[in-house]
């Protein structure tokens, strides 16, 4: 539970940060729920700084043979040059969190924490690896998951004799621990893995506990451009786990959708979300909050009427990595923020 004084302080900080939140609250309906009536638009920023390494780093004990998520047994003999890449940047964060950040030799486009930002980029177009670009870095082990490809490039790396360990890519809070465990095992540092997984679990638990849980309906919308086509996150999309972690109801799951599905304007009105969660870059592409509200269907939802739009840094929400606890805290703060 957030104590009233602290909530007010948070709200005040938020208000100062965003230059006031009076915009667009005039059309507030008289019968809005408590959450719907909270203060307008907000932002969940990406966590700053480097992922915190475990207190007691281990020296890798190699070789190890691990079962990769694609069912193969992979033997890692050398973990001095590590390439950990996926769509979300979470694998590189895990390696850094295990205290092996200085062994990373390259990064994906989502890995932007300061200690890794100088590393050469191996993904040109979002999540497509270039086999030659990877070979040039001469990694001794590649850790990836199915969110990055193409499978042919990974196959080419295997044929070149580079051990490729795939981690399963379930996008849930419960999967973070096993992901950390799998990475730690592949790098021969199982003890550091347990320590990191415990810390992450504790932080997520603490963040989830601090949310008020008055169950507003939150919809995660993927919008790009102004053509009136939205994708909504449903059951298993990853966004559902984050929304439920802050004690809210996922609008997509509530209307029976799974994964990311296209939703029509009318479908969105029927889903009646109290809060809309969108990606920062997506929001920018439609012209900010006022541009989003002009799109068909948005203004007719409680969230649109109250300008309850929260944007979250691209990649932060769905990264499910060592800093997910921090993201949940920030998300809860944005969802339950009051105008004071």
């Amino acid at each position, binding site marked *: 539970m957030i104590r009233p004084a602290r909530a007010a302080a948070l709200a005040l900080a938020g208000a100062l940060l965003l230059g006031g939140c009076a915009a667009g609250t005039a059309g507030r309906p008289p019968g809005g729920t408590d959450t719907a009536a909270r203060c307008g638009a907000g932002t969940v920023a990406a966590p700053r700084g480097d992922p915190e390494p475990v207190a007691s780093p281990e020296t890798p004990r190699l070789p190890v043979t691990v079962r990769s998520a694609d069912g193969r047994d992979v033997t890692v003999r050398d973990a001095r040059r590590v390439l950990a890449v996926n769509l979300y940047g979470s694998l590189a964060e895990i390696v850094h969190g295990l205290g092996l950040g200085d062994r990373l030799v390259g990064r994906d486009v989502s890995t932007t924490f300061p200690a890794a930002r100088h590393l050469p980029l191996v993904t040109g177009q979002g999540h*497509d690896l*270039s*086999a*030659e670009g990877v*070979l040039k870095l001469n990694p001794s082990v590649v850790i990836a998951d199915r969110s990055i490809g193409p499978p042919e490039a990974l196959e080419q790396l295997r044929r070149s004799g580079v051990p490729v360990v795939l981690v399963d890519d379930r996008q849930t809070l419960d999967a973070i621990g096993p992901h950390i465990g799998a990475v730690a095992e592949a790098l021969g540092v199982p003890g550091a893995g347990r320590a990191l997984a415990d810390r992450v679990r504790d932080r997520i638990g603490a963040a989830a506990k601090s949310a008020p849980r008055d169950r507003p309906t939150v919809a995660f919308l993927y919008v790009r451009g102004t053509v009136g086509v939205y994708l909504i996150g449903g059951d298993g999309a990853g966004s559902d786990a984050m929304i439920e972690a802050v004690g809210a109801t996922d609008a997509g799951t509530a209307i029976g959708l799974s994964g990311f599905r296209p939703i029509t304007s009318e479908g969105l009105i029927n889903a009646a979300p109290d809060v809309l969660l969108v990606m920062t870059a997506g929001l920018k592409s439609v012209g900010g909050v006022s541009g989003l509200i002009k799109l068909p269907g948005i203004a007719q939802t409680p969230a649109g009427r109250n300008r309850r739009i929260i944007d979250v840094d691209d990649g932060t929400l769905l990264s499910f990595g060592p800093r997910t606890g921090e993201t949940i805290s920030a998300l809860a703060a944005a969802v339950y923020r009051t105008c004071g």
Partner: protein
Amino acid sequence: MTRGAVLLGGLGVALAVLCLVAASVGQVNVPPDQVIGSILHRVGLDVGPRPTALRGDDALWVVRFPRVALAVVTGAALGCSGTVMQGVFGNPLAEPAVIGVSWGAAVGAATVIVFGLTVLGDWTIVAAAFGCGLGTTLLVYTVSRFAGRTEVVTLLLTGIAVNAVASALLGLLMFAAGNDALRAITAWNLGSLAGANWGAVATVTPLAAAGCAVAFGCARRLDLLSLGERTARHLGVDVERLRFTAIVVIALLTSSAVAFAGVIAFVGLVVPHLIRMVVGPGHRTLIPASALGGAVVLVAADLVARTAIAYQELPLGVLTALIGGPFFFWLLRRARSGSGGWA
């Protein structure tokens, strides 16, 4: 020496040089002499320098060689199928992608990708592309022929209709597809050799080689066919059989090109025309020269596609269409004035 022999020799040398250049350019630095050295060492001759770059040998044998090889095979198949198609349709604007055969084959392959079919192992995707490609070719051929001729307008309009249906089906498949399949289909629509591996090369090479060989065997009869169907028949050509053989060859060549590289437009259009300008319309030179020319164009285009922007791939099909599209405009205008209006 005849002009044709000079052209064939020249194209052969150009292809060999280009392959060597393509194999030596990339993110991992391996100069041409080390490429040759690596090949010689692989076949057991202990001469020449080995690649000095870290992982240089892997970059060559796992990434670049299969890619260059696939470019050669795909380019040859496209050039050859374009030539045969123009010969049998009696129409200079026939081209696998323009009249929809490539897209038809793409629908077959995308179906296999989306539903994860593996009935025939590695060959499933090729077989599906071939089946759909054959069906589309037959359809276009029967629909666009009228009174023994294929009119330009009818052919192009048929192509538009076939492309519309095929892209609708592709759209439907993309709607139904999961993330991985979606990525594969998109890469395919744009055409790319990024996924090249030895398995793909081994799968399409025999098909493309067989197609080119049969096409070459038909060269004489295709020459006679260009005199007109009736004349050809009087000269002893079994026109119906020739037509059927040619259609199967076109489907075979197009589907073997499409199966792993996706839709790469205009190579089959531009190359035979350029060759014809040099050596004239005789198919006995035209067919092998178009195959070599197609390979040269595709190896060069792929070299640009993968090296123009570091770490990124330009879509190959987009690149060829950018160059081939204007050529098509020019050809269209010429065909119009040549036949005195829209024939």
